[in-house]
């Protein structure tokens, strides 16, 4: 493989960082039994996506304006907040119905 160029290396390192955060977010969702813990993982994932967008906004040669990356990330951020709110509301409803925050407690699907 050809020797990486300078800006490529920086880009790669940044992307590795954001990927790691994304992977850890998935781990958090998949392995936590607690519903709130799962939401934390989801927030991590969304953040890593935002980071990705900003990175590409900064480093990409095709996009004329790096601000576009920021605006895109802005939308996602807004939606993430909204989603966190709705998610927590749902968790409250879950608690009222099943009495616990465990994801397994809400399992009425047989199988």
């Amino acid at each position, binding site marked *: *493989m050809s*020797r*990486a160029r*300078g800006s490529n*290396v*920086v880009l790669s*390192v*940044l992307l590795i*960082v954001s990927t*790691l*955060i994304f992977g*850890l*977010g998935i*781990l*958090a969702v998949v*392995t*936590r*039994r*607690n519903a*709130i*813990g799962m*939401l*934390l*993982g989801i*927030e*991590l994932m969304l*953040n890593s996506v*935002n980071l990705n967008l*900003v*990175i590409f*906004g*900064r480093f990409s040669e095709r996009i004329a*304006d790096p*601000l*576009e*990356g*920021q*605006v895109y*990330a*802005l*939308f996602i*951020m*807004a*939606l*993430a*907040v*909204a*989603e*966190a*709110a*709705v998610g*927590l*509301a*749902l*968790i*409250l*409803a879950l*608690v*009222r119905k099943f009495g616990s*925050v465990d994801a397994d407690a809400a399992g009425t699907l047989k199988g």
Partner: protein
Amino acid sequence: MGVSSGQTAAFLVLSLLAISGAFYTAFANKLFHSVLALLLTLGSIAGLYFMMGAEFLGVLQILLYMGGVVVLFVFGIMLTPARDEDRLPPMVKWHMVAIIGVGLLTTFLVFIFYYYTGQFWHEIRITPRITYDKMFQDISALLTDKFLVPFEVLSVAILVALIGALYVARKRE
């Protein structure tokens, strides 16, 4: 290895903070600790944003995420019977495994790095070459010009989310 610029150092610190924060979010035993770790991660990422010239976004990150979402989570923990889990068994054996695993992973990553770049160290420059002096105005221009439709849809979506959350979480008689 000589530190060539403060940028590299800053970047390294911020990245490591973010990653370890994320790790701790996933694997902390106590739920509240996870939330705090998330806070740390969000802050580090905000720092990265600032470094990359996305100041507006960085500010928003601090305001909305760290000030909004984390608070929401804290409320959630307080209002629900959330219990702490045993994420990792507190045995010495596991710590050894973790340390060895991390060591191996690091070696592997270093090796990959060397294989592709031919050196162990690289300067990281991520600050933008151009300065934004009219950032707010430019962003507003984008929002109302190119991204107008997503902007309007976003406001509708937030409204819907608001109403939905209120409805779902209302008190039952």
